[in-house]
């Protein structure tokens, strides 16, 4: 699971960043040291772990650094270009940039690239590339023009492909994008035209690239807020052909940021990308980590002071300008494992409840994504305000529904939604449902009065939603104290974060759960739903009924039946202990006591029959009860010891544990006696060492 750690700033003084932010952050030959080039005249060398600068160099007044300083990993020297053509080389010992080695070149430099293991490369604005050594040997050599007029280099990256350096750069001309791949082992320059698909009116805001085995995977963030992937072959299949090969980009992630701001993108590893930008048009900028494989948001961090829309990633650190201050956020992505991903699974569904496709079929999801770009555009779900529905002659039902969601009344949405859900399911059904839910939630956020409860309930009951498909849903429900909805979510979603589970638990234990309110909501529920297609409602009711039964049997149930039903939903939810424990500490002690009392009550109930189970459909299991008792005690023991109400409960739990220990020791004693008996018995048998018997063979 990816995680962003506590951020820290590198410089207390604001950098002299221009309107375009920093020029660059580059690695140094020593680990943990980075060269920061600001937009003006200064290059600073930072040691990141110490958060302090090790050195700072500036060019003379009047001169302007035009390309980020880099470190030559082979010699340890630093290289910078100022005034587009003047190359400066210096080392840590040099103080004044004016007095260091200087070389004036014949053409304007776009960037210098340097990565460990090879000599630095200089990329000229006209697209020509030179090795640094060759260039320094003859600085005034003629530099050829590679790209056409009006073609401008937008982005570039330098790789090692099987120990051979390769450079990729992207150019733009009149809204068309071209990719050039220069390989130095064969000196082949391959040019590709980037086909943008249907979204040609969008500008590409940011690029990032990573190496696959046979391809350079170029990710681009468009101004529509989506991330696209383009695979550029490292080894061009047919270099003889003069024809420019075209590469198509495919949608990787949809609408991760709002497209209108300055956004940035950086690939972290095979499956993770970091995106910088506001997730919604109105919101503050955020740094988010997305898993591209599962298309889920892993973690997000708000950056309220705004950024320059630039993002660098080296090793474990993400660099960005937060406000005017250079900020480093350490990023960690643990090895993803099944256990880590799932935590404790939801307990097996009982036969009474339907089997629901909890897990989205990613194959169809990705297939769908590709299809949408390569074939008809009409299949795409467009939900940006900039696109008018009239542009598309044939608008899919889901899109119509989305536009209805944006404008119409709750009642109308509900009717339309029911119509839509009655239609046949497409392979991408779950994503469509997710989009609809997100659409509804977006409107909830912008319009505080808008809360399409029934529609949301209906969507949840389609059994295809999960927490990650509509991240805001439970938060909204928590905000509105919509207990019924939360219960439904707890029953339906397989992937609720522990923090949210705990928030639900907190609410269920608080005074928010009252009889009248519940009754009222049940009424709404009954009105709003068609009982035939809504079988979960039934199980829901069963669940509410079950504790009532137990109440009839014993009078000591510490909570009202409604609350018991809600708590049972929490008991069934999936969790990982280590993530749940810190949140459990936040629950007030009185509530913890109440919950423990309830769990103890359930435990006693379990002990009433031989199979150690509770009556009713889908009851919590003994293991779940014991796990939760242990968790609660672990998290809150010191607090519980202090409060008098919990005293009797703790005493009874203590007595219980004591009696268990007693039983074990008694059993051990009995075992010894039994062994002695067995030995005696054996000796008796042994006496028959010799006998004469009759045997008949058939």
């Amino acid at each position, binding site marked *: 699971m990816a995680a962003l750690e506590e951020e820290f700033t590198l410089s207390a003084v604001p950098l002299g960043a221009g309107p375009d932010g920093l020029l660059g952050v580059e690695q140094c030959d020593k680990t943990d040291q980075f060269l920061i080039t600001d937009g003006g005249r200064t290059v600073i060398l930072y040691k990141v772990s110490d958060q302090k600068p090790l050195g700072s160099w500036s060019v003379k007044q009047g001169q302007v650094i035009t390309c980020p300083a880099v470190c030559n990993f082979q010699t340890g020297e630093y290289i910078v270009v100022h005034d587009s053509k003047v190359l400066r080389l210096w080392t840590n010992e040099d103080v004044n940039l004016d007095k260091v080695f200087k070389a004036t070149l014949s053409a304007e430099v776009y960037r210098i690239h340097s990565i460990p293991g090879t000599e630095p490369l200089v990329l000229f604005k006209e697209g020509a590339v030179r090795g640094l050594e060759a260039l320094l040997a003859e600085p005034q050599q003629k530099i050829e023009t590679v790209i056409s007029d009006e073609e401008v280099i937008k982005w570039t990256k330098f790789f090692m492909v099987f120990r051979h350096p390769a450079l990729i750069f992207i150019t733009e001309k009149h809204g068309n994008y071209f990719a050039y791949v220069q390989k130095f082992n064969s000196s082949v320059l391959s040019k590709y035209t980037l086909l943008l698909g249907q979204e040609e009116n969008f500008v590409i805001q940011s690029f990032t690239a990573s190496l696959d085995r046979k391809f350079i995977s170029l990710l681009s963030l468009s101004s529509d807020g989506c991330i696209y992937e383009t695979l550029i072959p490292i080894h061009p299949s047919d270099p003889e052909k003069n024809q420019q090969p075209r590469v198509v980009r495919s949608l990787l992630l949809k609408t991760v940021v709002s497209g209108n701001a300055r956004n940035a993108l950086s690939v972290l590893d095979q499956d993770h990308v970091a995106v910088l930008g506001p997730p919604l048009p109105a919101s503050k900028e955020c740094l988010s980590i997305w898993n591209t494989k599962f298309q889920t948001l892993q973690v997000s961090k708000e950056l309220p002071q705004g950024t320059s829309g630039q993002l660098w990633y080296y090793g474990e650190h993400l660099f960005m300008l937060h406000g005017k201050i250079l900020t480093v956020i350490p990023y960690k992505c643990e090895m993803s494992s099944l256990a880590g991903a799932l935590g404790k699974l939801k307990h097996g569904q009982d036969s009474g409840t339907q089997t629901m496709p909890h897990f989205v079929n990613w194959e169809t999801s990705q297939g769908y994504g590709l299809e949408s770009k390569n074939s008809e555009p009409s299949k795409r779900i467009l939900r940006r305000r900039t696109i008018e529905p009239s542009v598309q002659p044939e608008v899919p039902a889901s899109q119509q529904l989305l536009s209805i969601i944006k404008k119409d009344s709750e009642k109308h949405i509900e009717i339309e939604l029911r119509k839509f859900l009655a239609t046949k399911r497409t392979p991408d059904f779950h994503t469509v449902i997710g989009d609809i839910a997100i659409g509804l939630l977006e409107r909830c956020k912008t319009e505080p009065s808008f809360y399409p409860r029934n529609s949301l309930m209906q969507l949840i009951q389609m059994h295809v939603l999960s927490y990650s498909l509509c991240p805001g849903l439970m938060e909204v429900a928590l905000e509105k104290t919509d207990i019924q909805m939360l219960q439904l979510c707890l029953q339906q979603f397989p992937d609720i974060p522990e923090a949210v589970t705990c928030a639900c638990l907190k609410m269920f234990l608080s005074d928010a759960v009252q009889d009248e309110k519940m009754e009222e909501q049940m009424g709404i529920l009954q009105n709003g739903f068609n009982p035939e297609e809504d079988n979960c409602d039934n199980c829901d009711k069963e669940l509410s009924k079950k504790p009532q039964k137990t109440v009839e049997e014993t009078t000591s149930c510490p909570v009202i039946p409604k609350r018991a039903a809600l708590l049972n939903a929490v008991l069934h939810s999936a969790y990982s202990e280590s993530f749940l424990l810190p949140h459990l500490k936040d629950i007030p002690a009185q509530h913890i006591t109440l919950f423990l009392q309830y769990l103890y009550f359930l435990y006693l109930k379990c002990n009433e029959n031989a199979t150690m189970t509770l009556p009713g459909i889908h009851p919590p299991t003994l293991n779940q009860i014991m796990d939760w008792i242990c968790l609660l005690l672990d998290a809150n023991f010191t607090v519980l010891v202090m409060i008098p109400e919990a005293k009797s409960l703790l005493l009874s739990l203590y007595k219980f544990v004591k009696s268990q220990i007693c039983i074990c020791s008694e059993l051990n004693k009995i075992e010894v006696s039994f062994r002695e008996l067995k030995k005696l018995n054996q000796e008796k048998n*042994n006496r028959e*060492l*010799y006998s004469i018997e009759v*045997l008949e*063979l058939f």
Partner: protein
Amino acid sequence: MGEFKVHRVRFFNYVPSGIRCVAYNNQSNRLAVSRTDGTVEIYNLSANYFQEKFFPGHESRATEALCWAKGQRLFSAGLNGEIIEYDLQALDIKYSMDAFGGPIWSMAASPSGSQLLVGCEDGSVKLFQINPDKIQFERNFDRQKSRILSLSWHPSGTHIAAGSIDYISVFDIKSGSAVHKMLVDRQYMGVSKRKCIIWGVAFLSDGTVISVDSAGKVQFWDSATGTLVKTHLVANADVQSIAVSDQEDSFVVGTAEGTVFHFQLVSVTSNSSEKQWVRTKPFQHHTHDVRTVAHSPTALISGGTDTHLVIRPLMEKVEVKNYDAALRKITFPHRRLISCSKKRQLLLFQFSHHLDLWRLGSTVATGGKTSGKFLVPGKHGDTLPLSKDADHLLQLKTKVSKMPACLRSAVQIMFSEDSTKLFVASNQGSLHILRLLEGSFKHLHTFQAQSGTVESMCLLAVSPDGNWLAASGTSAGVHVYSVKRLKLHCTVPAYNFPVTALAIAPKTNNLVIAHSDQQIFEYSIPDKQYTEWSRAIQKQGFHHHWLQRDTPITHIGFHPKRPAHILLHDAYMFCIIDKSLPLPNDKTLLYNPLPPTNESDVIRRRTAHAFKISKKYKPLLFMDLLDEGTLVAVERPLDDIIAQLPPPIKKKKFGT
């Protein structure tokens, strides 16, 4: 078939010795096992795990280490400070050599097989060169301050790891000096134990050293830096043994609690190249200490104080479901330890250092119904009242001192039926015939070994008329000699699997041969060819349940009156084959434990087949027909053996 009076004997007080070492030889797929009494056994894993060779032990030669070197050469070393090489052909000790380092605790052959290392009580590690005829001392390594309990070579042969008390040393072979000394934590579950004994080490080709110790730890060390990499706490008691597979992708450890743990090198996540050692499977096939383990390509082999040799196949490595796919627990020797005098109703039990002679008891019960001519007093399952209990007559411990040279070492001896001749299989492949006179004997003849072989004959059979002698070694075929004419009569065609039992039938002089793959052949000595019946059963094939038995036939007997009957037994069943009845095919039931109820004679006759099996007596060490209506069965219940073992480590069953 008939009714029998069965003398059910359980007083054979045989207790196998605990297993001390096992050594697996990949080249020949053989397993050498040494026991605490110094006995060494060789099992042929390709021949249905048959124990094909056996070197008797002696208290003074307790083995502590056993290893194969130079392909097929077997060495052992023990607390008497000697290194012993075994002659696998002559079944004898080739030579023994004192290492002059006090008791030897460990031994390891170099990966190339040309050098031998021993770890001694005085803390020295000694390197020996293995020459074709002998071993030669080469050098001492830097002496350590306490005994060297375990040794392991790096697969490249440049370094070794040596486990001592509280630390592991890594030696450089060239210089002979310790490169690293890795101290092992004495702490055990927070309690400081007195000492931490490194019971086993394994050196992997990537430089990792795995150690197992008396604190219950399995630890991984980096030999380049001498640092601890990882610890697995696997037991509350000692971990006493370790063995690594040739591929170095799995290893096995054995603990004093009787548990064997399998560790495997598995990928951290699917399709990632990063791998780590994971404890995958625990096996509890032993009740006592697992003193030694071995890792064959397809199985985990373990042995210990509870005397069982356990072969646990790795199911993922076994391709076809056959013998190799079944768990094997070998407890009893694949040899006959009992012989019987039919006329005098005496039983002779063979122990490692003495012989016991017993006389069977008798019953006066008479009457009942007739079975053929014989009167059986009682019905199936009855226990008859004893008129006389069995007597322990003698215990023979002393050996005759003056023996001719040819009799000093014998692999097998046998008397002729009329007790006038003694046949001796010597350890040089030759067979001697002696005439027994009152109080002395006379050497009559020696059949020399076949040219070029020195393989000892370990099974003998003599015909009741005294004319024929059959002898079999472990690999070559069965030779039949004419005692009258004193020459080789014929050789039975060689078969792939070793012979487990031999016998010559009275009157017909048919030689019955049982092989370790459960095949049985009947060979007519006068005609020098297989009999009709043998051909018929080979043509039809044995019943699959017969072939699936996992203990070898150890004895073959005949009915004195009915020449068509052959009696055979293994450890779990005995069978009387009636050659006159039709052979069973795979559709018929081979063994039916239930007596026929009210079926008509017709049905009984139709379903009757040649194999009459009883599994009533087990584990069965010996069974024979005393006369036409009396059987003797010698059982050795496992519980009786367990009762004589030291108590195992007590484990709590309830509570933790």
